[in-house]
Each structure stands twice: as C-alpha cells, then as structure tokens.
C-alpha cells in the first residue's frame, strides 16, 4: 500500500469502465465528501490519466497522486477546503 493510506476517506472502483462513467461516479462521490477529504479512485481505462487530470482542472479538485501498475491506474484526489 502507499503512504497516503491514512488520509483516504473514500474508495471508488471504476475498473472495467470507459469514460464517462468513471468521471460521473467521481463527480457524484466528490459531492458526498467533506472539504479536505481524499478519495482513492481505481481505473483500468488507459484514457483515465488524462481524463482525471482534466476532471481536476475543471472541478477545482486537487490531484494528489497518480500511479499505474500492470494496467491499473490509481488516483488520489482531494476535495479543496471550503
């Protein structure tokens, strides 16, 4: 596991799904998070790296971390402080 384990407040599994479903699910989950909380999103769509960068730019959320291991992508996204 990674150094962000202690800060993860929600997990979202979008493996097997192509855009826009991971983005729609992330958007919904971010609405449920409190300000300052962090979500961990897992995806397998190769386009998800660009998609989540773009998602964070457009929504003002902070992409803390992005990794890829054996075709599986993990993103840590923080909802900004109020």
């Amino acid at each position, binding site marked *: 596991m990674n150094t962000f384990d202690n800060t993860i407040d929600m997990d979202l599994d979008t493996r097997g*799904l*192509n*855009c*826009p*479903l991971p*983005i*729609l699910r992330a*958007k*919904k989950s971010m609405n449920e998070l409190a300000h300052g909380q962090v979500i961990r999103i897992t995806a397998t769509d190769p*386009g998800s790296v*660009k*998609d989540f960068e*773009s*998602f964070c730019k*457009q*929504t003002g959320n902070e992409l803390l971390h992005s990794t890829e291991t054996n075709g599986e992508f993990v993103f840590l996204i923080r909802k900004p402080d109020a």
Partner: protein
Amino acid sequence: MKAAERRASILAVAKILFADCGYHGVSVDQIAQRLGVSPAVLYQHFASKEALYEAVLNEIACRRESYVEAALAGDDDFAGVLLRMTRVYVDSVVEDPDYLKIEMQALLEDARLAQQFFDARWKSFTDFIEVSMREQTTGINFSQVNPRIASLMFQGMLREALYAKCIYQAEQYRDLSAQDLVEQLIRLFLNAIEYRQ
C-alpha cells in the same frame, strides 16, 4: 523534415489512400508518389506495406475521445449525458470520416483490431448505456428492455447514421446535418427503451 514529422506525414497520406482504396488497392509506389518521395524513404520508416498499414490501423484504433466535458457540462441525467457524448463523437467523425472507412475494413480483416476499435471508440457508449440501465440511474425508469440489446441498437444506429452522412452522403438525409440526424435518432432510441425521466 525531421524523422518524426516524416513518419507522421507518411501515416497521414497512407491513411487517406487506404481508406479510399483498401489495403490491396494501394501500392507503396502510390503512397510515395503522393508524398513526393521515393519508395526508399517509406522503407526507412516502415519495413513493408503491411507494417505501414498496421501502423495506420493501430493509430486510428487507439484514438479515443474524451467525454469529461460531456460528463461535467450539465446535469447527470441519462439522456443529457448520452446526447452530449454523442455530439463529441459525431464532431470527431465528421472531422475525420476516413476513420469510419478504416474501421469498416478492420472489422472485415482482423478481429483483434476490431476489438481495439470497439474498446477505444464504442465501449464508452455501451458501458454508459448498459450500466445506467442496469443501475436504474437517478431519475431513470426503464422498462424491461435488455440493456445489452439496447446498447447494440444504439451502436448500430449511430454507426449507420454516420455512414449515411459521412461516407456515402445519402441523398435523402442531405437536408439534415449529422448532428440533427443523430439527435433525432437519439430521441427515437429513448422512446424505444421507454426512457422516462
């Protein structure tokens, strides 16, 4: 011209010729002639015509649209998101209709490539339709329509509309833009699956 630029220009010209004439209808000499170079220049970048064709197919098959904007630009209702993502896709095909011709050829020639085309270009639609219908996404009340069959219907409908507008430019749809045609079809699709928001 730098090697990367030369390679890109070869791919661009080869794509146009393969789209119009198919793999067997184009020779390396014709591609070189169109580029204004000798065939030897092509062979510096691609070992054979087959390798060039494969590179063209791979490049097109792996290209994908981003639907982030479509997901974020309005409400999350099924019909709204489907319409917005379809607009993105239609714009992309209208801009580069050769993609459709190459896809059609790939479907006939190579199952592996056909799967790549599906994963990169169509799976976004089939995932969205099937999962939304299965999960009865907020605000949706679908009838007993099979989600997998519905997504196949959508895929066939959209593909045929784009063939009619972008490949054989059918006379009977000439007064409609590709976007207008597709929007009318989406309304029919929503009626067919008894979509009620």
